[in-house]
């Protein structure tokens, strides 16, 4: 529960408020909530509620939030809202804790509560029944400007009882690029307008002046007007439902259930944390190209610490804010809470506020992942948020793998793509109407591997559980395009003991209208880290073929299944580059990335590799090079496979400068030994981490798992067939590292890094 203070602030609090003020820097609520005199918060709550009434009220609150979501999906028009479920509905307590959060886009979890606190503290005397507040200022709390919050205070009598709120992605809210992901934005003034909390609904009526101002920002004003009405209708329904409950069961009872649910979520979280030793987990990735025309690479860091019953997320070592690849604190926090909400606390059905009480942040301001006011953030929904999502996914997964509970370890999941791969085109459709068309095929998705199972192609995106992939016909009906193919992209899932799910590949042509492509994937660096030696998921790329013979091919009855074999000129594409100009003879191909794998691929059961190859999910090249499986007429040759795998381990060691035969993999781990995955044994007697295969020492228990490892550095494009030479996009050198057991050549990690950067410290457990 937030501490509501009326005493004078301490110097530290005063300092915090001055610094994290939502004006110069991101807003971060102080530990205490200061409510102005003109606003009364309802606080009367029953503490003794029988377990039956509790459940009836719990289900009704959950239901009110679901109903809110149904209304938005029925009435909204933004395809991003409808298909990727890029929206969220929430019930938030009077003092700003998230009670219920819907099964929609999860990273929106991280700021709606903060916005409530901001409004209370900065606008509290104006918070009135019947009003709704619109906010899309990323420094106060949203992921980027197109994600617009609409918050509705719910009053019982003259007391603020709780809030209902939604955040809905708008198809276009202005800025330099149609669709409002402004990849060329030099600063916040190229981005769409950032609107601090303003009352767009007063006493139940839309304020015409405010709405006119809001509509004026958009290339598609009618669309955002309809979406606004959808959001108002959703809030109205949820508010009425909660007021009905307060009347029926008593406001104090409903409030008591809200408190009880948050306490239960908190204790479920701390109970789970008890199974995990204190420690630190770390991830690092690089974002290439900060803005159109840039050729740099930028380091993003995420550290997760567990200390007793608290988690601390930090971004130490992240590069300074730059170009248009930044995100604010709210978005940053959102990605971490999304990982907790789904990967850790799925049973709580979206009650995230209790867990959030146990989580602290140590952000360094002025960095890419906690930028100060004034820099561009609008493309965050494609780049920065997704990368943070993948990184939060990875650090939380590493932490879960250290649990003593099998059920908790089973929640560990390798990351999905760290960018949102899509094309956004705009122009005039076949009916002559102006349109903005985001192709959201990536929501068809892919899942990462777990410690016991492969990921799956087309298995949705875990952090948007209800997202739905588009039908080809739905897009072709509204936009002037024609799909040539859309299918599983082989070799795109990260190789591993358990393989990451593949992504998809799409070919399409303009058809019957006029269009240009403003946003498209052109990535040089992987961003979905492999776990415990597996490979990352693939990158996203775009091929543009101009002056092709596609029309002649189609007329001749040939429907191509790839751009290979078509004539025409390949136009080089650049990450966050200028819009692509397309005409009738253009062909475009793009892909959505695969997910990361789990464990060293040389430990994958050979029969699984044979099955993958037969199903076309991997190529013969990968079966041989990554998995070391030798097949004769489709069947596994066990002896030759053993030999090939030993040779590959030897080659790895040689690459790391160790020129000898790999050690025998015959170490037997004593029963009862604490393990990290199946790969690292914690030898308490010797005080060391050991390779579970050959017994070689990896590091001391008071240090970490990468103190004594071999490192093979080679080129990024050598990760696999779905990676390319990053020098086409960036000028700095980056290397691909394989982190190996010095004894047997077992692979414990893979990473892309600047040559001068230290190794990522995967696991640092503070043995008690």
């Amino acid at each position, binding site marked *: 529960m937030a501490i509501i203070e009326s005493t004078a602030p301490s110097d530290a609090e005063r300092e915090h408020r001055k610094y994290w003020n939502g004006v110069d820097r991101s807003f971060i609520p102080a530990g205490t909530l200061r409510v102005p005199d003109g606003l009364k918060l309802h606080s009367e709550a029953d503490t003794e509620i029988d377990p*039956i009434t509790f*459940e*009836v009220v*719990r*289900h*009704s609150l959950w239901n009110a939030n679901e*109903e809110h979501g149904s*209304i938005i*999906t*029925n*009435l909204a*028009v933004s*395809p991003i809202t*409808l298909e990727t479920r890029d929206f969220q509905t929430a019930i938030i307590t009077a003092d700003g804790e998230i009670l219920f959060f819907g099964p929609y886009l999860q990273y929106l979890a991280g700021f709606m509560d903060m916005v409530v606190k901001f409004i209370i503290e900065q606008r509290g005397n104006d918070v009135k029944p019947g009003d709704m507040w619109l906010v899309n200022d990323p420094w106060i709390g949203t992921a980027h400007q197109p994600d617009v919050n609409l918050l509705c205070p719910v009053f019982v009598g003259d007391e603020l009882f709780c809030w209902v709120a939604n955040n809905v992605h708008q198809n276009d809210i202005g800025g330099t690029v149609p669709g409002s992901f402004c990849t060329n934005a030099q600063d916040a003034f190229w981005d769409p307008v950032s609107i601090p909390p303003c009352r767009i609904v007063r006493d139940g009526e839309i304020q015409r002046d405010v709405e006119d101002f809001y509509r004026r920002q958009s290339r598609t004003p*009618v669309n955002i*007007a*309809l979406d606004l*009405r959808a959001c*108002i*209708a959703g809030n109205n329904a949820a508010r009425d439902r909660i007021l009905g409950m307060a009347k029926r069961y008593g406001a104090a009872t409903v409030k008591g259930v809200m408190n009880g649910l948050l306490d*239960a979520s908190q204790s*479920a979280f701390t*109970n789970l944390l008890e199974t995990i030793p204190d420690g630190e987990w770390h991830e690092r990735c690089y974002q290439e190209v900060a803005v159109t025309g840039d050729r740099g690479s930028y380091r993003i860091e995420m550290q997760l610490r567990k200390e007793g019953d608290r988690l601390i997320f930090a971004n130490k070592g992240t590069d300074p804010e730059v170009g248009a690849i930044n995100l604010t604190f709210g978005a940053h926090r959102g990605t971490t809470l999304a990982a907790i909400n*789904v*990967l850790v606390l*799925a*049973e709580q*059905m*979206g009650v995230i506020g209790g867990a959030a009480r146990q989580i602290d942040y140590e952000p360094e301001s002025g960095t890419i992942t906690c930028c100060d006011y004034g820099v561009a953030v609008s493309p965050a929904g494609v780049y920065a948020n997704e990368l943070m999502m993948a990184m939060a996914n990875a650090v939380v997964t590493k932490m879960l793998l250290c649990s003593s509970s099998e059920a908790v370890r089973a*929640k560990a999941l390798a990351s999905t793509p760290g960018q949102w791969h899509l094309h956004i085109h705009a122009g005039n459709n*076949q009916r002559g*109407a102006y349109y903005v068309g985001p192709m959201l095929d990536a*929501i*068809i998705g892919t*899942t990462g591997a777990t410690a016991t199972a492969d990921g799956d192609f*087309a*298995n*949705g995106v*875990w952090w948007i*559980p*209800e997202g*739905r*992939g588009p*039908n*080809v*016909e*739905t897009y*072709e*009906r*509204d936009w002037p395009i024609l*799909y040539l*193919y859309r*299918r599983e992209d082989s070799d795109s899932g990260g190789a591993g003991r358990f393989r990451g799910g593949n992504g998809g590949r799409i*070919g399409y042509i303009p*058809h019957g209208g006029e269009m240009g492509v403003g946003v498209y994937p052109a990535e040089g660096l992987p961003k979905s880290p492999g776990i415990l030696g597996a490979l990352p998921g693939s990158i996203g790329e775009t091929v543009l073929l101009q002056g092709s013979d596609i029309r002649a091919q*189609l007329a001749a*009855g*040939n*429907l191509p299944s790839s751009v290979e074999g078509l004539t025409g000129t390949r136009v080089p594409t650049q990450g966050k580059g200028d819009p692509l100009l397309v005409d009738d003879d253009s062909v475009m191909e793009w892909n959505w990335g695969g997910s990361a794998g789990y464990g060293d691929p040389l430990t994958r059961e050979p029969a699984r590799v044979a099955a993958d190859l037969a*199903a076309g999910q991997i190529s013969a090249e990968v079966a041989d090079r990554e998995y070391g499986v030798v097949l004769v007429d489709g069947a596994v040759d066990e002896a030759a496979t053993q030999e090939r795998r030993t040779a590959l381990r030897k080659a790895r060691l040689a690459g790391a400068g160790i020129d000898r035969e790999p050690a025998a993999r015959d170490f037997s781990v004593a029963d009862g030994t604490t393990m990290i995955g199946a790969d690292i044994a914690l030898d308490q007697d010797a005080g060391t981490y050991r390779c579970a295969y050959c017994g070689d020492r990896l590091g001391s228990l008071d240090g970490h798992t990468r103190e004594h490892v071999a490192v093979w550095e080679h080129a990024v494009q050598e990760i696999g067939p779905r990676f390319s030479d990053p020098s086409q996009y960036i000028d700095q050198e980056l290397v691909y590292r394989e982190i190996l057991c010095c004894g047997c050549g077992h692979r414990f990690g893979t990473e892309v890094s600047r040559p001068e950067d230290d190794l990522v410290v995967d696991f640092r457990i503070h043995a008690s």
Partner: protein
Amino acid sequence: MASSIAPDRSLIAAVDIGGTFTDCVIVDDEGKVAYGKSLSTPADDFQSGFFGSLEAAAAQAGYPAEELFERLTRLVSHGSTVATNIVVEERGARVGVLTTKGHEDTLIMMRGLGRVTGEPPENLLRVTETRKPTPIVPRDRIRGVSERVDSAGTVVVELDEQQLEAEVRALVADGCEAFAVCFLWSIQNPAHELRAREIVRRVAPDAFVTVSHELSKSVGEYERTVAAVINAFVGPKTSQYLTKLEAQLSKLGFGDGLMLMQCHGGMVPLEDGKDRPILTIGSGPVGGIVGTQRLAADLGFRDVIATDMGGTSFDVGIIKDLDPEVAEGTTIGKYAYKIPAVEVLSIGAGGGSIAWIDEASGTLRVGPQSASSNPGPACYDRGGVEPTVTDANLVLGYLDPKAVFGTSGDRQIHPRLDLAEAAVRRVAEPLGLSVTDAALGIIEIINAKMANVLERVVVGRGFDPRDFAILSYGGSGPLHAAGYARELGVEQVVIPGEVASVWSAFGIGLSDVRYQQEEDCQLVEPFTSADLQTPFEAIEQVLREQVAASRVGGGVDPQLVRHARVRYEWQRHELEILVPAGELGEEAVSQLRAAFEASYAGRYGAAALLPEANLEIVSVTSEAVVSTGVQAVSRTAPGATDRAPDGATRTVHFERGEDGVEAAVLRSDDLQPGQSVTGPAVIDLPTTGIVVPPGTRVARGDGGDFIMTFGG
């Protein structure tokens, strides 16, 4: 009360094959009803259950079974369970899929929804515990064919017939016995699908072939592919079952053809429905909605929520202005498709729902896990130990402790109160509650969950539940109706007479013959009335021919009912708007807008309207209705009822923390039309009972229905 059906009457019969029971209802031409029940018999293709139910109904009506077939003028059935079981048990035909080259993965991708489809909300976030299903057709039996049509119906790439034939031959060689053909935009130009069917029929004359555009005219290739694949998957076995049934019927002297109930709420002659068995999926519950619609009209209600609570699921349908709401899509198992259907939404709440304690909050929860029929509730004494809703009903005295479930032999169940109490104690003790308080809690929670679902369904469509009456049927419905109706603020609940236990069959028996045509269109304002007229004329021409050619169509000029699916441009959700029949005048366009705005404002409030937004007509449908004129004067039957001993009471619990009360026990004949009882009372009905809480009044209507109203 109804007397026996007179011997010289012509009869119609309807049979509903369910998972456990096969139900039959007979209606004579004076509207009198009789019914029978028999165990379903999947082992012999459901045949003995089918005939058993007819015999039981004939016996209730009071004459020998052989006479029945001579008097029958119409027999309606549905293969719903037959087709549904084939899908659920994954024992359908070996299907080959032919689709547009480059889009072979459409069925595999499942729009990315394979993991969450069909899962209860409790599982949505459980990413590592829930998985995508194994594909219903493996990837190597899905073949891409070179062909392409665009969204306007223009051919972009000609169909490569040679390649298609080669693929068909390869699939036949691989053992395929059924084919599903789904090409992109076949709804705009079906030529390639039709040609593909010709080729399949030539190459594999015995194979069952489905082309997608004949099942659905909706935009969206995934749902259309699923529809085609499921139709092909169930086709051969369903055909076999129907052929067998027809042969047996004709042997028994039934001269007329069989009719099939369809999920769109009407029936069609067998010969017109045989190729589309998918339309029978879900048709049983839709029969229940049709019955509800008829009952609503008889009783003078316009807006009714139909609720069917059984052992494992709670099904809901909505009748608004006497018309059933149409489904946006249908889900079977993990698969979603979109064909014209009356909406029946289902959640996992029933008599078998299990109560448990949530460790984190220390509170009681009910469901979504179910003891289903195996092992069933603890009181069934079949190995179940977890407390279920049915156990709670028994503990509280809602269910007759001497009740017998099932029909005969070893399938009969005599519920045991001691086992029910022991089961409920498992949650009562840790929570510090008495067994009866815990049982009341279980009922309160399941009622609240059902009320919440109803609210979400009704409010989600923009309606106010308080404007509706509730109709309750199914094995567990009447036990809970008072509870969930009160939660919703509904004022009246109707529980049909004893026919309630065979309600779907009853509705099927009253159905009209219906043929439907739909046309996708992409009409965005501004458009003229002529633009609107054109697609209707095209489909109505087809409809008239269809009716004229059918067994029921001789000399009949069918009534045509038109609808347009309308939305604001760019929305993805439409409202169905009634369009006048015949030649449309210039005013038709403004009338359409006015009707859309009225419906939209009625549902979402006038503030949700945006007059400057363009309207878009997504599709038009026209339906030819040939009325059968069947009426039922009552929902009860002779000999179906009995009386409780005078002054019978039993202890029934209503309020937590209070002692039980001695409630009057009635059986249906204790309450004659015009009479009423005020709770506390229970009305024991065969296999279920009506719980009448204190202060609640139940009156018996003329048709034998029980009408519950709440005091205050």
